[in-house]
């Protein structure tokens, strides 16, 4: 007897849905089928739904009311995440996958936690690297490094998203970003905040894993590189942390996470976003000896979806929502303090020019 596949409903059908989730679900047809796709743009909703033989709608309520939708994935703009997670929980769905960040404030996150507990709906956040087999293998083997590491480095050289989206699928309708004056303190601060909450947030849970005193965050410096990104030096408890990203056309994308102690060190090289290019490669070094884990055939996207299936079927323990709240509040604190630093520096530079 074959197990029936789980019905998926998708809120928001932009590039993330098109280039990440649908290609991942195409690898998991024995587990999932897409039931309904919602987007505020009816042409996008219809086009994306047609790719997978699903029905479409422009209404969140209509999608949530569909009893064939057992799992909801939320890929809408950030500001809608919290209310849609709550609505999905209240609609009695079996599990919810929300793209990061799953809320934009601690209060929203706590409200989600309350509703999730009340409805007993398992929730996961689409921080794909936390499900990457390379990261999971490193966790199993890093031994004392978790406490020994004194330095954490998280670095991204980000190629234009369309380059990798176009390797993954054929995207219809991309969001357009208006040009902005980065000499304006609010614009500069907004770029930093958006960079942390939109990009750095992917692996801030990994950073937090190595920072037991994650509520003790000091931004030592923050700069806004050209054309966009962030360069943040942090003290988190007793750990020296650097979080950086630069957007570049360079044909050498980089996405690395390092935790370094006196006697052991971990480096993880993640494969680029969007493409189904296998897992990260984790290297644990202890002096002249290295242990290498991966690359494995599947990546974190597939990992998070398989875990979601296990949650929906009751064969996996739900994640502790408190941990998700901690991840979010850590990211918010880094983002807010970094943005404030850049706002102040940009304003000071502006005043200097005016004088």
């Amino acid at each position, binding site marked *: 007897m074959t197990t029936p596949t789980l019905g998926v409903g998708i809120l928001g059908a932009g590039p993330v849905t098109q280039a990440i989730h649908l290609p991942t679900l195409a690898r998991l047809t024995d587990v999932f089928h897409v039931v309904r796709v919602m987007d505020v743009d009816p042409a996008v909703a219809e086009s994306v739904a047609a790719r997978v033989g699903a029905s479409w709608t422009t209404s969140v309520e209509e999608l949530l009311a569909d009893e064939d939708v057992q799992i909801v994935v939320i890929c809408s703009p950030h500001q809608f995440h919290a209310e849609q997670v709550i609505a999905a929980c209240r609609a009695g769905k079996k599990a919810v996958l929300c793209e990061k960040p799953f809320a934009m404030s601690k209060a929203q996150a706590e409200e989600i936690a309350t509703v999730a507990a009340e409805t007993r709906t398992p929730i996961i956040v689409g921080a794909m690297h936390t499900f990457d087999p390379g990261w999971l293998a490193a966790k199993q083997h890093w031994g004392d490094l978790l406490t020994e590491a004194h330095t954490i480095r998280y670095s991204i050289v980000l190629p234009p998203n369309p380059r990798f989206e176009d390797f993954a699928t054929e995207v219809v309708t991309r969001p357009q970003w208006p040009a902005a004056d980065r000499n304006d303190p609010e614009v500069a601060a907004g770029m930093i905040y958006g960079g942390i909450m939109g990009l750095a947030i992917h692996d801030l849970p990994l950073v937090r894993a190595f920072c037991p005193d994650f509520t003790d965050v000091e931004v030592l410096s923050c700069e806004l590189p*050209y054309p966009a990104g962030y360069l943040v030096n942090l003290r988190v408890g007793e750990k020296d942390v650097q979080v950086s990203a630069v*957007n*570049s056309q360079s044909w050498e994308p980089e996405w690395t996470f390092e935790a*370094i*102690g*006196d006697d052991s060190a971990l480096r993880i090289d993640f494969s680029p976003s969007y493409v189904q290019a296998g897992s990260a490669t984790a290297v644990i070094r202890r002096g002249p000896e290295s242990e290498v884990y991966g690359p494995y055939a599947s990546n974190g996207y597939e990992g998070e979806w398989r875990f979601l299936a296990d949650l929906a079927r009751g064969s996996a323990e739900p994640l502790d929502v408190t941990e998700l709240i901690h991840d979010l509040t850590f990211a918010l604190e880094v983002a807010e303090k970094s943005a404030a630093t850049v706002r102040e520096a940009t304003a000071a530079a502006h005043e200097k020019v005016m004088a």
Partner: protein
Amino acid sequence: MTARLSVFAAADADAADRIGQAVAALPVSLHPGDDGADLVGIAGDPGWVAAATAAIDRGARGVLVVDPAPEDVRTLRERRVPVVLDGRWTYNPAVLDSRPAFAARNDEESLVEARVDVPVGADLERVLLSQLALVRTAVAPVERLTFDRWNAHGYDARGTLASGARVALAAILTDALEPAASLRIIRAQDAVRLTVPDAATARPGEVIVSSAEGATLLVTKWESAHRVAWRTLHALVTSGETADDLLGFEQDLDVLRSARGASSAA
């Protein structure tokens, strides 16, 4: 015909960089000598300026200093005798080869990132001077520097170049990783990445130049930085030229002292 010069290495300098191996790898140009040899190798421990001056007084025509500590070098510079400062990374052949690629991309919208991994217990001021020499040689001198941290695990600092390019310097103290330096310049449209191993190994440094058109690995040269440093000193002495190393060191030391003074004051 190549002039063959004698080399005398103080015992501590030999231990520091295995001068004997470099001399043995240049058998037509160099041969071991004794005190009073044409070329003298000394360790860059405190007092090295006095040791170099004394060597010159004894007739040395050129001096090589391994991993120099911060010291005033003005009087030594005025002797106008070639002095090569064999820092931890500067003389790796990949560094010289990277210069045109870095120079072409050194502008106010560039971000220069430099990181060194060094053994636990390393002298951070000497490490920083070696790192500043690396940035100066490959890209341009660092003009201003501010420390975000300076502690038992290393440092993080930010600075600028004359072009307006922003610089981020880091040192990480660890015995888990091989000693190495990396330096990269990133811009919106392209990047250059240089990686340099320890000075004693002949394993090559790498220079990768990348843009939207692809990434190119420049020629790899399997020559240790120490050997290049000795080859450079030989060439300077036989051609009658002087080196710029002391002048650059003096500038770097000003940057270090200014930044450290500011950090201490804060």
